[in-house]
């Protein structure tokens, strides 16, 4: 039922392989044990992350947010099978200039939508955001996400992204401000409000300086 084609990515946690599952293009993400950490800790983290990824994707399946659909999972053996998302990472797309401030603004809005569903991503770097030819954004890699997160986790999503924008996409000066604009452009009455989350993000940002 599964026919492997190529290794897409050898990341810090998982190896991602593309292939065909019952004829449909899909990806197999295998979380290999990390030899540096104690096997008990490794097992615990792998299970935790796989199961939260499953829960987040299940919850997102019925939403308007684009993300892979869950095809199969084996928690004991550390793998998950997902539908294939067409496109490239936002990281690459910003680097090549195919994406720019407009997409960053869209991304802000998308993150707010995610937060309004009661999910924090937990690992919002531009490597975990995909964009296709039409400019549609998708979110992937929910292993560190939280369902029904506290406001701190929502603020942290923005901080992680802020740090990534500074470190990897410094040529887009003021990107975080544009992202915040997008984040605040949704006017649902969900709590905590956009302003509250941005307030928390600013507090986190201020905290992360020199820690004596």
């Amino acid at each position, binding site marked *: 039922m599964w026919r492997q084609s190529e290794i897409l990515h050898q*990341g810090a*946690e998982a190896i991602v392989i593309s292939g065909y599952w019952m004829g449909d293009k899909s990806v197999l993400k295998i979380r290999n044990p990390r*030899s*540096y950490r104690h096997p008990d800790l490794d097992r615990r983290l792998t299970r935790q992350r796989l199961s939260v990824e499953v829960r987040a994707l299940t919850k997102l399946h019925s939403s308007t947010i684009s993300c892979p659909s869950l095809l199969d999972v084996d928690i004991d053996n550390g793998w998950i099978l997902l539908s294939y998302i067409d496109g490239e990472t936002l990281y690459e797309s910003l680097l090549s200039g195919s994406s720019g401030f407009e997409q960053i603004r869209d991304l802000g809005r998308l993150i707010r939508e995610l937060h309004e569903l009661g999910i924090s991503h937990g690992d919002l770097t531009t490597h975990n955001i995909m964009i296709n030819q039409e400019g549609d954004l998708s979110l992937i890699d929910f292993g560190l996400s939280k369902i029904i997160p506290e406001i701190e986790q929502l603020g942290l999503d923005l901080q*992680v992204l802020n740090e990534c924008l*500074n470190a990897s996409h410094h040529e887009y000066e003021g990107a975080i401000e544009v992202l915040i604009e997008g984040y605040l452009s949704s006017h649902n009455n969900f709590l905590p409000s956009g302003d509250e989350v941005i307030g928390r993000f600013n507090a986190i940002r201020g905290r992360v300086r020199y820690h004596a």
Partner: protein
Amino acid sequence: MGVILGIESTAHTFSIGGVLADGETIPSSSALYRPKDGGIHPREAADHHSLISGDKIKDFIEENNIPLEQIDAIAFSQGPGLGPCLRVGASVARSLSDKLGVPLIGVNHCVAHIEIGRLQTGCDDPVLLYVSGGNTQVIARKGGRYRVIGETLDIGIGNMLDKFARTQGIPFPGGPKIEKLALEWERKNPVTSLDNIILPYAVHGMDLSFSGILTAAVQKISDGHTLEEVCWSLQEHVFSSCIEVAERALAHTGKKELLLGGGVACNERIRKMSELMCNDRGAIAYWPEKQYCVDNGTMIAELGRRMLEHNLETKLEDSAIDPSMRTDHAEVVWT
């Protein structure tokens, strides 16, 4: 041959070291301020530094037989760090530079950890895992600057270890003692399960946090776990989280070298973990000698030397300290 002197005083350590113009290092002479009741007292640390700085510098120059006319420049930690401590180093550096009539070079403390590591280990373009008392950062060079890829959102890892140690009556700095106790536990319990003593594991994307695990570790002691076991579990959890973030940084940047720096990089367990992680992904782990992992004047001199080669002197009017100096504040023009 000319000598560049470096003065370090960002936090608990006052240190002076040097480097010859060709990069040969002169080991530092350092003094550590140990708070009596454990807490952090920037002003007391600063008083300590100003009290001993004069003698330290005099002794260093005498013991290493450095002729004053061979001193090419005075480098000092301009930031980031504790304001009162930084001020002592800066004013000592200013007066030395004035007295000797040589350039003054204000350097970034975090960047100095990278440059001494590169000089000592021969690595070229590493991801730095900088694990010290006040700082925990993952740094790499991109677009002509050293940039922070990930960092702690609350306290530094060394700070967390010291604070935990203090709750158990272990004097500052507590890290080395925690390492010993953890080793003891492993020696006595070679097949013990970490599932018996689970602590929080706080990785947030590329960032880390340590205050939650501190509270939880103290609680484990109250729950009746032995200090040795808690130390062991604490090390396994926090070091793994640091190495995980370092590995993500390697994956994201495509770099193939990991460099450890900062006082916690003296720990054998985190060194071992770095090595295992790097071996698994075809990268190489490096760390400098222990004396150059901890805060030291030599690393300040080394960064000063690189900057002097490019005439990056600091004018007196620009020599004010900057306690929250950013790692990416200055362009990196040297190779």
